[in-house]
């Protein structure tokens, strides 16, 4: 999902919401799209069979390789039906095994990272059916005759199943970005050993081991020769693959950055060119963009723990947007936002709006400090200033929304100002 534009760009000044309604704002990447976002999460959490018309092997609810479950999902049938069909085909001459094996090899697993299917007794049973079917198939083809070669062939089949299962498991663990570990390697090796032992045993029972040994030696020599001959080619190919992979990752990252810059910086630059004859608008646009880009670049990865600082910065950004002023916010310490903190932030917002409207300057400084027993906020401008004693009673802005609000919440407010010397509003709220 593309990052949202600056918190508040093109956003009408909103009343300060009850802080209790907002989650941690710092950790919420799409503050404007909460309902839509929830809906997306819900659909993603369901298996959503309708969305996946492609045939994948299932990674959950599977008995063996996930072929039957996946095919059932694909065809809209019950997996049980397909399992019975596979078993029936298997027992009727072994065709089910060939089909199942072919699907296992050629159909990709669904990338359901993080979810692991149940693997247990059911899988053992399925393996048994598959092995029995395989034996039947070999028997019907005349490869296995007599019970003496049954054991080695069963052994070989078990090894094969082990290796294949491990191949699936290591693919899944790659998706989960966790290493396969020595256990996976052991399984693969054990499977390969079983397979080799089974094949050797099979050849031995048929009395062809001696002949096979000679064939094996010459085969090994030829394979080794081929390997040496083609080694540079393989090495180059793996290096190329690695390079290509790295390049693809890099170009993906670049595309993401480009998308963000396009949505934010380029758009703002276009707006700035259009508004070139309105310096205040240009400054407002540039500042909003700067704030957005700064947030994008330096946003703490883990999200902020407290919310007071984030709330204060958010309302400052809103006032900046709405009144075309620049507000520098410095916050020392942080704490969770409760109702009292919300009231303090709302009062601070009112003080900022007041300064933006009446100070006559386009710059102000907000400083907040979280102390063990109280919260302090200072809103200071170097503008026109006024004599607090002479404020007419009908100018309710500061009196009502700042003083009243603070006193209702057990805090206090104080205004220091003199004509020509700017204004500073000091807000104090108790805090525990």
């Amino acid at each position, binding site marked *: 999902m593309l990052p949202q534009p600056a918190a508040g760009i093109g956003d009408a000044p909103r009343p300060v919401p009850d802080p209790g309604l907002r989650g941690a704002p710092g950790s919420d990447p799409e503050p404007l799209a909460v309902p839509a976002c929830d809906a997306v999460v819900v659909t993603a959490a369901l298996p959503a069979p309708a969305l996946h018309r492609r045939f994948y092997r299932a990674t959950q609810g599977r008995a063996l390789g996930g072929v039957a479950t996946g095919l059932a999902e694909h065809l809209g049938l019950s997996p049980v039906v397909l399992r019975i069909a596979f078993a029936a085909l298997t027992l009727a001459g072994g065709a089910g095994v060939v089909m199942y094996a072919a699907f296992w090899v050629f159909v990709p697993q669904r990338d359901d990272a993080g979810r692991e299917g149940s693997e247990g007794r059911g899988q053992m049973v399925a393996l048994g059916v598959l092995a029995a079917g395989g034996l039947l198939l070999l028997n019907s083809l005349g490869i296995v005759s007599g019970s003496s070669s049954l054991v080695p062939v069963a052994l070989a089949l078990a090894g094969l199943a082990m290796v294949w299962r491990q191949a699936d498991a290591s693919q899944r663990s790659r998706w989960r970005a966790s290493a396969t570990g020595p256990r996976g390697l052991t399984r693969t090796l054990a499977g390969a050993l079983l397979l080799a032992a089974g094949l050797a045993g099979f050849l031995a029972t048929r009395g062809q081991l001696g002949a096979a040994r000679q064939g094996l030696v010459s085969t090994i020599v030829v394979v080794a020769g081929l390997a040496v001959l083609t080694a540079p080619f393989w090495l180059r190919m793996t290096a190329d693959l690695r390079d290509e992979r790295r390049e693809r990752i890099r170009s993906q990252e670049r595309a993401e950055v480009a998308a963000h810059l396009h949505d934010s910086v380029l758009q703002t630059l276009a707006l700035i060119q259009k508004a070139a004859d309105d310096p205040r608008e240009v400054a407002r646009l540039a500042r909003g963009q700067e704030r957005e880009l*700064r947030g994008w670049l*330096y946003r703490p990865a883990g999200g902020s723990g407290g919310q007071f600082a984030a709330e204060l910065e958010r309302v400052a950004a809103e006032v900046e947007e709405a009144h075309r002023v620049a507000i520098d916010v*410095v916050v020392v310490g942080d704490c969770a936002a409760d109702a009292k903190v919300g009231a303090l932030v709302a009062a601070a917002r009112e003080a900022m709006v007041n300064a933006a409207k009446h100070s006559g300057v386009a710059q102000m400084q907000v*400083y907040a400090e979280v102390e063990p027993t109280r919260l302090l906020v200072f809103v*200071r401008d170097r503008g026109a200033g006024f004599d607090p004693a002479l404020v007419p009673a009908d100018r309710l802005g500061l009196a009502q929304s700042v003083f009243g609000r603070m006193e209702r919440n057990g805090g206090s407010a104080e205004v220091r100002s003199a004509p020509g010397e700017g204004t*500073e509003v000091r807000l104090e709220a108790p805090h525990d």
Partner: protein
Amino acid sequence: MTDPRPRVVLVDDHRLFRSGVRAELGDAVDLVGEAETVAEAIALVRSTQPDVVLLDVHMPDGGGIAVLTAVAGDAPSTRFLALSVSDAAEDVIGVIRAGARGYVTKSISGAELADAVRRVAEGDAVFSPKLAGFVLDAFAVGDAPVVDEELDLLTAREGEVLRLIARGYAYKEVAKELFISGKTVETHVSSVLRKLQLSNRRELTRWATARRLI
């Protein structure tokens, strides 16, 4: 000295920004050179021995900190004022701990910048409200054990001075507010700067190690 203006070297890898600063500073300083890479800056500072180096924090090949560490000792009378678009705490604290005498953001006005250069040239420290906030945060009475009383704690007065700076007060206004002289304010700020550079408080160390500055 015939020219009372501070001799200044400007180090920034953006030509556009350098020409902007040059225009804004105008005649207020004696600009003796400009550099756009770390290597150029090191050579230029060594050869010209300026009073003040205006130093960009973010440059390829290590940025301002690389310049500061490379010329440490080679230019004993040169003072550094860091300029940055970044407000990230580790950048600010990092460059101060590497030896810069002050930190201002690039959005500072020309007059304020000229004033900051003059003050740094006179040996004072220049704290922006943001930097004052970071320092208060780092030295806030927290869970960090105090190893060195003298370096790890701010005095009450230093705290007051920093709070006023963070509230947007100029040094003169701070002095008036606290009924002390401007020189005393400078002394407090310089003392804070020294603590900032020498203290091993955990927060400072954490920022520094996060950026591999130690």
